[in-house]
């Protein structure tokens, strides 16, 4: 019960902190002081107090999309276990539901972008959908490896497979899986090298360009949903990177939080030392992610 409560609290309150840590890391690399770590919380509060401006040409989809996306992401994160604790909701085959809860969010975001009738947003939507064609197989290959290891189709048990199997026999495929999932994390959350969250040139953006017309609380919801998605993918990656548990619940939670911040710092470092890829090279990166995850599978069944 108490673990469920902590799960929910972390899930709802921690994600903006990760964005803050990433921005702080990037600022330190650039020799700047950077915004405070809690800046994203302030932004969200500020956005919540603003008025909404809605274009005349849009329909209900435009208003509903951010909310549906947020709900989808939150529901998806109820299926994912955090650290060594079990997930709040778990049933056989829920990994399919997980993938498609994320997809429904993506579907409505792209719909809302098309709904505005803005050419640039349409371009962003086209890119988002194109790249997701490649990132989804990578995710499923990763799940396939874990399903093979654990022999179950429940996301909760499946993600704990590295914890149970230990590092001895499967180290090789876990290395591949970790690389693949990290690329996936960067791609799904529109980070450098796939997309630049800070860019202001509409021609080169992916995720940011789709939400150009959203304002006020709706923009806040989009931002918050994106932060939760980052939290979600980091939580999945942590199962592969650090399959450890200490045995006592408070220590495990502390360990989880520290690992989470570590992933955020890693993302910040990657963003600082890499340039954004050319748009036509992004599919190569995603194909590489698919290859890594599928080789993980080959090594496992070999």
């Amino acid at each position, binding site marked *: 019960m108490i673990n469920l409560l902590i799960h929910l609290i972390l899930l709802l309150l921690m994600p903006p902190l990760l964005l803050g840590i990433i921005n702080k890391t990037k600022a330190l690399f650039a020799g700047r002081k950077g915004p405070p770590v809690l800046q994203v919380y302030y932004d969200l509060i500020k956005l919540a107090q603003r008025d909404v401006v809605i274009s005349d040409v849009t329909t209900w989809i435009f208003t509903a999309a951010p909310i549906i996306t947020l709900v989808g992401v939150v529901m998806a994160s109820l299926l994912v276990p955090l650290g060594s604790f079990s997930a709040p909701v778990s049933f056989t085959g829920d990994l399919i539901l997980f993938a498609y809860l994320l997809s429904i969010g993506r579907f409505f975001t792209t719909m809302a972008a098309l709904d505005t009738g803005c050419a640039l947003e349409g371009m962003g939507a086209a890119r988002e959908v194109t790249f997701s064609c490649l990132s989804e197989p990578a995710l499923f290959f990763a799940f396939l490896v874990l399903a093979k290891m654990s022999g179950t189709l429940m996301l909760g048990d499946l993600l704990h497979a590295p914890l149970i199997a230990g590092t001895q*026999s499967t*180290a*090789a495929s876990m*290395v*591949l899986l970790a690389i693949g999932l990290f690329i996936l994390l960067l791609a799904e959350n529109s980070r450098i090298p796939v997309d630049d969250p800070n860019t202001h040139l509409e021609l080169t953006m992916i995720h940011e360009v789709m939400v150009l017309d959203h304002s006020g609380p709706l923009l806040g919801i989009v931002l918050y949903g994106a932060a939760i998605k980052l939290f979600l993918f980091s939580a999945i990656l942590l199962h592969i990177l650090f399959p450890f548990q200490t045995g006592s619940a408070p220590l495990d939670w502390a360990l989880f939080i520290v690992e989470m911040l570590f992933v955020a710092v890693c993302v910040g470092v990657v963003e600082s030392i890499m340039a954004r890829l050319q748009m036509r090279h992004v599919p*190569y990166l995603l194909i*590489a992610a698919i*290859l890594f995850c599928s*080789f993980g599978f*080959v090594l496992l069944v070999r």
Partner: protein
Amino acid sequence: MNPLLNALLVVVLVLNLFALGTSRLVTVIKIVSLQGVLLGLMPLLLEEDIAMPVILTSTVTLALKGIVIPVMMLRAMRDVQIKREMEPLIGFLPSMLLGALATGLALLFAKALPLADEHTTQLLVPAALATIFVGFILLTTRAKAITQIMGYLVLENGIYIFGMLLIGVMPMVIELGVLLDLFVAIFVICIMVNHINQAFSSLDTRKLSELKE
């Protein structure tokens, strides 16, 4: 057997694919040098009792493959002022997929080989075969002389991984002799690269076949 060894070999395989996928020469050189460092660590993981010869092999490999040769290559690159491989015979994405296919086939092939029992769970043989093949791809499909040297180095890395199978019984002299040969070969090639550049003001090896009376 040490589970870390398989993890290292997988990283080597991943680096192979990255080497095939990038057009920047600096990146290829860095990748091959990282591969050299990983190969240098392998003898330490393979042997249970770490004796003097093992440490020596490891350090010499680390120093040569990880530091000396890459530095020489970077110098050669700076002298001839080339940054990118422009027109490979097979594109970067296709060659990456080809490399991935080769790795998959190497895994299947190694399974069919009658190996000693202690080698069946390790990835040494498939990793060696895949690395050799990736070296071949780099060597044959790239036009610039520097990338071809990198292909040669990757090829040699593959042979080195194969040699790891015999590290217990092979005299260290042979191992060091091979490394010395490699060093000399790279040295000579670097000088040649400079001469090719001076004579043709380009490093495109296809121009060499245009020599006619």
